[in-house]
Structures are given as C-alpha cells and as structure tokens.
C-alpha cells in the first residue's frame, strides 16, 4: 500500500534547527527516527502529518551513553544498540530483556526506545523496565528543557506528556543502588512481530524492595503500587504470594480485543507474576534463567 498522504520531508542537522522546525510546524509535524510505527500509522491514516522531521542526522542527539551510576538512552538509540551492549545485559537485565522482546531483528535495527515511549501504544514492551528503574524523560523545546519522571509520562493510549513543540532527546535510567535482579516476561502467540497480550517487568532489590510494572493490560503501562507496598521489606512465602496474586486483578484493567480476552489476561498476569518473582529470586542467587521459555512457548 502506497502512502497517499503528501508531506514535506525535513532533515535538520542541528538541535537548534529541529526545535525551530517544531515551533513553526507544531502539531502538523511528525518526528521520524526509526519509522517502524510512524510509517505504519501514516499508511493506516492514523496520522496525516504535513511535515516529517527526520532526526537521525541531528548531530547533538546521541545514542547510548553509559555512566557508572546511570545510563543515558539517547533518541537515536535502537533496540539493537541496547541488545549489543554487554554493560546493559550485565547491569540492567530487565531493560535488556525488554529490548529482546520487541518484534524482530529487522525492526529492532531501526526502532528506537525513545520512539517506543513516544508512540505510547498500550502494548509497548519498553515501558515496564523504564517504570521499574524510575527513568527520567528529557525534552527540549524553544521554551526550555523539561525532565519528566516516566511515571508521569504516559497519559492515555498513544498520548504522552510530550507537547507538540517538544523533542525527546533521551531517557536517563538510574542504576539501582543495591544488588538487584529483574526479568521481563511477555506473552505473545509467536516470536517475531507479535504484540504483547500481556507484559510484566519485575525488579527486586537486596533490601527487599520490589518494583512491578504491567503493560498491555490497561490503557497505559503502570506500576503495581498496591502489590509493591504489600511486599516491601518482606521475604516472600506461599502465604504472602497468595495475597499478592489476589491484588493483581486490582492493579490492571485489561480489555478484550483481537489478541486476547479480559479474563484470560487477568489469569495470565497472575501466572506471569508468580513465575516472574521466582525467576528474580533465582537470578538473585546467581542462577541463569532464560525467560523466553518461562510461559512454555
């Protein structure tokens, strides 16, 4: 299917130029990084921009930047860049596993993490990790810079805190201050392009702080705060696990759609939550667990 919507193509080389373009064009402009969502949206007439601003040649925009206590994921960072980083695999396993769950290699070579959070489709894979690590989104516009906690970023399906004249330059992911382990579990029907029917990220720290985030089971990805509060400071036994599992349905609000039913999503989230906790505990003890097969797929 050819694109029927005509648009001007801009390819700015500096941040200054990009910000000016955004100020002039505002909501008529779509920002293009990997294009794996944008081009599909234009083909489907979900978006009809009169201008497309390609940010891949903006010299100030960076890719990955790894510091000792934090990670900066610049707007140009693709999921392949994340997967190719051994530092991320060793220190931010939850983030690394989320990147691996995104579509297939031909998409991951182009799709960026920043693009993923700007598209903000409810089934996105990268959100649970960013929520669990308490990431910060950095934007810039003509009126200045903003640092937005990821918890305040997602507003509604396909809607974020980004204003039309703002460019997201990157996301900072702080390294947890304690020994920790994590995992990302995605339920899809097959590998490759399938979107998540449900997704779950868990990060547990040695001081018994638990961070749990769900995706694809509500209008926006969310942290499971009631479960986190229940578990905080406690070792998990069978009784506590049972109580926590009962809270899962209160934390999420899945719908029935083409990929799954509401009831099934609620059920599978309880299963994923229990298995995810076990994986995190095993990993905390140094075991190597492959989560790809955790749901028996």
């Amino acid at each position: 299917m050819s694109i029927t919507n005509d648009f001007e193509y801009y390819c700015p080389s500096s941040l200054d130029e990009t910000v000016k373009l955004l100020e002039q064009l505002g909501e008529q402009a779509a920002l293009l990084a990997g294009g794996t969502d944008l081009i599909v949206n234009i083909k489907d007439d979900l978006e009809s921009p009169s201008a497309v601003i390609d940010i891949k040649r903006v010299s100030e925009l960076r890719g990955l930047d790894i510091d000792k206590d934090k990670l900066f994921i610049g707007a140009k960072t693709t999921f392949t860049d994340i997967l190719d980083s051994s530092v991320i695999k060793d220190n931010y396993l939850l983030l690394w596993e989320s990147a691996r769950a995104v579509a297939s290699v031909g998409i991951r070579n182009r799709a960026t993490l920043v693009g993923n959070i700007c598209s903000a489709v409810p089934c996105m894979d990268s959100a649970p990790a960013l929520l669990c690590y308490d990431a910060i989104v950095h934007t810039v516009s003509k009126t200045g810079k903003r640092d937005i906690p990821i918890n305040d970023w997602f507003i509604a399906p396909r809607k974020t805190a980004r204003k039309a004249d703002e460019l997201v330059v990157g996301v900072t992911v702080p390294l947890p201050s304690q020994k920790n382990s994590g995992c990302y579990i995605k339920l899809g029907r097959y590998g490759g392009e399938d979107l998540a029917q449900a997704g779950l990220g868990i990060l547990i720290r040695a001081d018994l702080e638990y961070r749990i985030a769900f995706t694809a089971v509500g209008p926006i990805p969310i942290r499971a705060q009631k479960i986190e509060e229940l578990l905080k400071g406690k070792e998990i036994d069978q009784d506590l696990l049972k109580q926590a599992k009962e809270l899962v349905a209160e934390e999420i609000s899945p719908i029935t759609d083409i990929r799954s039913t509401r009831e099934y999503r609620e059920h599978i989230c309880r299963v994923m939550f229990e298995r995810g906790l076990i994986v995190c505990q095993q990993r905390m003890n140094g075991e190597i667990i492959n989560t790809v097969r955790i749901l028996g797929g």
Partner: protein
Amino acid sequence: MKEITFILNNEKRSVQVEPSETLLEVLRDKMGLKSPKCGCDRGDCGACVVLLNGKSVRSCLVLAIETAGMEIMTLEGISAKNLNALQEAFIAFNSFQCGYCAPGIIITVTELLTKNPKPDLEEIKEVLSGNLCRCTGYKPIFDAILDVTGKEVK
C-alpha cells in the same frame, strides 16, 4: 520530487523520489530490483528485507528519501557474480517452494552470519522469527543455514 544518491549494490546511483515513497517502492519500481518483495507492507512478514548500512531493515517501513548517502544491498548485489554458499545450500535442501520469502530470509541470515558465523539453532530461530514462510515449515531453511555454518544437520 527530490534527487537522492545512494550506494546500491556497490554502485553509486541517483534517483528522483517523492518524500512519501518507501524504499521498497523505489527499489522495485524505479531501480528495477525485484528481489525485495511486498508481502504485508507493514513490517510484519520480512519479505522486503534489505541491508541498509549493513543492517537488515524492512524496506516497506523506510522512506527512500531517508537513505540519501547510505549503502543499500539487496539479493541482486549479494549474488552479483555467482550464487553464494547460502544460496547453494537453499537449493540443495529445498529450502523454498514459492520463493516469495527467500530473498528476505537470505538477507536476514547474511546479517546474522556477519555478526556471528557460528549461530546455534536457537539463535537462527530467533533471528528468523520475523520472516514468515508459509511453504516449508522452516525445517529445510534451518537445515540449509546449519549446513553452511558447518553444523551437522539432523
């Protein structure tokens, strides 16, 4: 229309493109290269995969105008002189029937083998999970790739 120049299959080429034309459309309709196929046209099936600066991408999701100054490689460029070992193995193992998915698969595997010349079956399956084939059941495809990497085919 805007003129862009890129390196296509090791050759410098220029072409007039509209901003809304995808790389797949330009390759097939303006450059006469028919190996990238249009399957789903939305990035799901992998039939249109080409190498862009050495990385496999879905050409149906790339605007042609974005690729100015970049290097593009299609199956025609990979086998300009003779069939390569991977292609020979695809023939030997009957790894395609209708052939629609084969160019995308061979390009995807070409990237894999550049990154990792000795992938195991799990890695091959993971990399090809985004390339749909509805003829072969995949076994002959995996067999051909394993054979090329010197692994015993069971």
